[in-house]
């Protein structure tokens, strides 16, 4: 749907290697947003950081030579932007820390009023489960897990993007996968229990 909107309102933006900003945005916006979250950007800042990434893309699109896949190129930019946001967040004196036990809270209640389809509700619940899981995961493991498992980057790509050893990527990924399977199992057990309850 967003693609239709963008295609209907073309803007005069630079082109390089057959790309323009609208096309890069259309294809990689979600990846950038999620990668920024994976790289430690707060949810509240994810939109701003995403726009920053695409501002850089806009400026540097002329320099893009096509030797690197676009998604890897964009990920590199997202990594640098995320680094700046993390630094800013650490420096901020007004940083709000979650209260004890707040991270154990249940996902926000679903407000599906315009589309009552059960499928949509189930999908949103599942997405909320994953979101809760990655928020509680150790930041290092979260970056590896999200980039590999959600964005589909290979371990060597993640190794290069994060500047860590390949073996470290594999070990973090293995641990994160185990934790994820456990989290899913716990969630499904809870769901079954609630379904059986009168």
């Amino acid at each position, binding site marked *: *749907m*967003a693609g239709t*909107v*963008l295609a209907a309102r073309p*803007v005069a*933006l630079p082109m390089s290697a057959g790309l323009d900003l609208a096309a890069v*945005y259309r294809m990689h*916006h*979600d990846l950038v*947003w*999620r990668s920024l*979250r994976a790289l430690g950007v707060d949810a509240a800042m*994810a*939109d701003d950081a*995403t*726009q920053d990434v*695409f*501002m850089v893309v*806009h400026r540097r699109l002329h320099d893009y030579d096509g030797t690197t896949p676009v998604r890897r190129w964009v990920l590199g930019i997202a990594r640098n932007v995320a680094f700046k946001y993390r630094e800013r967040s650490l420096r901020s004196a007004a940083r709000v820390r979650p209260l004890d036990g707040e991270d154990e809270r249940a996902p926000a209640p679903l407000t599906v009023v315009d589309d009552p389809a059960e*499928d949509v509700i*189930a*999908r*949103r619940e*599942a*997405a909320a*489960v*994953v*979101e809760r899981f990655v928020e509680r995961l150790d930041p290092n493991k979260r970056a590896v897990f999200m980039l590999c*498992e*959600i964005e589909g980057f290979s371990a060597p790509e993640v190794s290069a993007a994060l500047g860590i050893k390949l073996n470290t990527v594999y070990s973090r990924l293995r641990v994160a996968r185990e934790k*994820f*399977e456990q989290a*899913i199992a716990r969630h499904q057990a809870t769901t079954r229990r609630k379904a059986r309850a009168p």
Partner: protein
Amino acid sequence: MNPHPDGSDYLAAFRRERPGAYARRRNWRALKRRIAMTATTATTADHVDPPDGEDDEGSPSDAPDLRRLLTAVGLTFAIAASALLMIRGVSVGLTATRDHHVPTMEAVDQARPSSPHRVTPARPARSARPSTQTLPESSPPEIDRPPGPTPIPVTASPRRSPDPNATPAPAEPTRSASPTTGAVTTDALAAETRLLAEARRALAEDDLAAALAALQQHARKFPTGALQEERLAYEAIVRCRQAPPSSTPAGRFFERYPSSPHGPRVRAACRP
């Protein structure tokens, strides 16, 4: 969704739901705004002119005011020339306007012969000079025109000369070999534009004599030309700058107290 989902189904749901279509659209709108703001900032970095409508009374010296006036007149001139040329079938690209480069004749020349994709078809006659409008039979519909500001019908403006026979004197050589009336009028407009651009350049270089010479040449050749208003504006600027500052009370005041805090009020009160 799979009734018995496994981990991959959860991840697929997450991919689909985060960040969501709304965030995509919202970020795209914000991104476009930021890009536009960046472009505006970069363009205006070379100018000291405030946006339209902004009060400029705080300026301590006369120089910025003069530059604003020159720029305003130049922009008016550029817009009028562009509109006229679009009516005649020549479209000056939006880029020139966006970059705040006043389209000079060189730009117009570039747009005309060497950029066939920018040549727009002649529009149906809307001016008071129907005899000069020749519409090709095979003219494509208006929808093929490139996007841009709606051309202003020149003769609809009461400020323009109502004389429909205000075609230029034959002294100005025509660029086109075509003997049609439309071609002659377009060339006359080009000649007018060239003369006023020359005057504007001379004014910017503080060469008042050269500016006046160009304006007088314009007045001789095109006494009721389409750009008469622009010529009179430039003439006013030249005369004001030629007059010694001490010839008016405000001039005497600013000569003596160039940085006075009363300057803005004096300047506002003494405006013509």
